[in-house]
């Protein structure tokens, strides 16, 4: 249809209903005004392109960003590093806090001792909720934390806002902070530090049955705005277990209760939940973390035995549904040995452990890996890694 035909049709409309003339004139006049404004904008843009001012403007912006990056590198003493390797903030002398939290969203925050082994305190009363022991996470006191719930919901919290409980005392869950109460039918799955979000590329979710899903952190604004990340599970019986931030080229390790270790290249992970390990009916994931190549890996059994492996021992699985490396021989499994935690460790870091009596103790990692045991004598429920200063925290 030509434009003249259209004009003919508009005229016919006016002939049929003369009152339409006013509406047609108003709509055409509005269009003319819009077009003339746009014409002026295009002319201005054309002039800016022709005389080079637009190019200069972008060059200035790039130069300004490069200057800011140099300043940041000098500030953190990392002139040789590339952008993803930079810490999110300049390091400051901040104390480390240990968070002890349960599925009901209750969180204790205790000041982790500065160095060496220490007794931090004891949880009085019931330890488990829904057969899940409390989990431990050590992180700097000025850190921001992300709370991940079993429904796929997320929330944020500033660690410094949590009240401190006194070291060495017995703590009741009733006294613990409840910063974001789980909704009906929902449990708090894990808490992770997330100040490194701007320099991370992916959120990686791991479920109890070994489903893995990654999500680009470029969607973080939408995720945090909607307070929803998704469960990252496939089957109805499966439950979300861990969430981690990871950069491009990173590795993901996860360990199961029956001592299977699986390494995965994060870049190769799917954006949809995918089962990545073939587990026996009774097995489930008990730890998931993103180690660096130089990290040591430790694996802890329910009776406090510690297995130590070099970071290079972690081989990325090639098969989409691997069985993972066995950490202990089958006869040890038949004897009832099970794993309760695993983590990546760096020099100077310590291990916090919660035992079945509710006691939380901190151990020197070097001593523990040397002796091969935590030496508590009791059952261990959870572990966490206490960073040497305000380094990357960890927990399992």
């Amino acid at each position, binding site marked *: 249809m030509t434009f003249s035909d259209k004009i003919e*049709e*508009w005229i016919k*409309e006016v002939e049929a*209903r003369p009152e339409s003339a006013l509406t047609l004139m108003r*709509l*055409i006049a509005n269009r003319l005004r819009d077009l003339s404004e746009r014409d002026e904008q295009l002319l201005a843009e054309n002039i800016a392109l022709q005389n080079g001012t637009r190019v200069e403007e972008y060059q200035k912006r790039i130069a300004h960003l490069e200057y800011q990056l140099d300043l940041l590198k000098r500030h953190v003493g990392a002139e040789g590093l590339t952008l993803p390797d930079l810490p999110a903030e300049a390091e400051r002398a901040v104390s480390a806090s240990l968070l002890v939290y349960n599925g009901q969203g209750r969180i204790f925050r205790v000041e982790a001792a500065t160095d060496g082994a220490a007794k931090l305190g004891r949880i009085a009363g019931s330890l488990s909720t829904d057969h899940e022991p409390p989990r431990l996470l050590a992180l700097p006191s000025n850190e921001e934390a992300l709370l991940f719930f079993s429904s*796929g919901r997320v929330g944020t919290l500033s660690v410094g806002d949590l009240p401190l409980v006194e070291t060495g005392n017995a703590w009741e869950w009733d006294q613990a902070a409840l910063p974001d109460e789980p909704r009906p039918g929902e449990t708090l799955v894990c808490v992770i530090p997330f100040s490194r979000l701007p320099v991370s590329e992916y959120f990686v979710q791991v479920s109890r049955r070994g489903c893995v899903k990654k999500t680009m952190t*470029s969607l973080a604004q939408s995720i945090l705005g909607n307070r929803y990340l*998704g469960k990252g599970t496939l089957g109805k019986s499966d439950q979300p277990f861990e969430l981690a931030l990871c950069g491009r080229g990173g590795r993901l390790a996860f360990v199961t209760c029956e001592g299977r270790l699986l390494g995965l290249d994060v870049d190769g992970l799917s954006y*949809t939940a995918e089962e990545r390990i073939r587990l026996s009916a009774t097995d489930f994931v008990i730890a998931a973390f993103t180690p660096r190549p130089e990290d040591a890996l430790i694996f802890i059994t329910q009776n406090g035995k510690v297995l130590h492996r070099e970071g290079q021992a972690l081989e990325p699985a090639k098969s989409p549904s691997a069985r993972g490396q066995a950490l202990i021989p089958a006869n040890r499994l038949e004897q009832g040995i099970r794993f309760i935690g695993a983590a990546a460790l760096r020099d100077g870091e310590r291990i916090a452990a919660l035992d079945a009596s509710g006691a939380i103790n901190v151990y020197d990692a070097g001593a523990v890996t040397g002796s091969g045991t935590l030496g508590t004598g009791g059952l261990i429920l959870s572990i966490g890694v206490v960073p040497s200063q305000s380094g990357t925290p960890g927990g399992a």
Partner: protein
Amino acid sequence: MSLKVGLDFGTSNSGVAVYDGTRVRLLPVDPKNVLPEVIKTVLYITRDYRALIGQEAVEAYYRDHVGRRRHFVKQWAGEIDVYGADMHYVRDIFVYVDELKPGRLLQYLKTALRKESYQGTRIFERHFTPGDLAETYLALLKRRAEEVLGERIEAVTLGRPVKFSESPEQDRRAEETLLAAAHEAGFKQVDFELEPIAAALDYEQTVAAPQNVVIFDFGGGTLDIAVMRLGDPRRREVFASGGVDIAGSDFDRAIIEKRMLAHFGHGQAGQHPQVREMIHAIPDWMALPELGTPINRNALEKAIQAGVAPVRLKALESLIYNDLAFTFYNRVEAAKIALSSEGATVISLEDKDIALWELYARHQFEADIHHYLLAVEKVLLDTLTASGLDPAEIDAVVKTGGSSSIPLFTSMLARIFGAEKVKASSQFSSVAAGLAIRART
């Protein structure tokens, strides 16, 4: 006794109502909508299979899709057996899937029930049949109604068109699918009432003396007509009923086919059959969102590079790859609605690489849908003949449903029956109200 409600599962809009014997209460099931008693029949399913309905679904769709990234991966879809004269081999079939797609928005769930060719759709890893989609929507609508009422709803009177389909077999199958979906959604007791008869029951509340009435229920998916005797609840009589699957969505399609395709390169992509196919798929609300594959993008880019209507094909690319389909259909529908009260309106869509502007007058719209007017008039007169009544014996013509306010059809009714007999009922809620009355009796 368990609570029983009337539920109008409409093609474009739905509603729920209860009747206490004296007064019908339409439930505000969509507080975010301009009319909270009316809820859009749209369903949004996220990648994690969270389902949302109504305005909440629309908002979530926009929030998740505006400016989003795409990443296509090749996925194995199945295999086909290829037979030749002396050979047979099996070939794998792969499809490109956007693994960053956050969710799917589904409209016209009721139309899907009556389309024989529509077997359902794959949403991420799961296949949803038309029944599954209806069940998901009805379950959420039921939950919302229960929240409003503060008690469990176990029984429902569901509206259904006079004819889901011209084929009796497909009509029976559509009703069975809807019945099963309602049971799966949690309604223990389900019965049906024809939508025009439900609208008549609502109108009867306003009638003082018995009347012969034509109900002209013209919604988003079908036209339903009933000729009835109303006014005395003990002596109601349905003289005849009829219907045809012409309605609002057909008019939207006519507008797109006749006025919009030229903006996307129609008639200018001669040597590019793949591009031509994409253009022809624009009016199909089910097909357009599926066009966003890397292969199609490649074909579009090649045509643009070759100088084939570059501005229009860029607009087509933007329509497909910037997830503008839903916005586009909404704009077309909004223009159609505006023409019920205005002599002219504008259909416009502005986004990256797209600047669509079409001045559209009522005269043009009426010319574009004139063939539907003839079909509608024929069904109306056939139904009237079947009732044994003359137009002069009809006391009132009650029009309901969104499409019934299109002036072309109002004029037709006035021409046949006389303007003074044509009465407007509540466009979107009279069927739900009538179903609630039926549920109580």
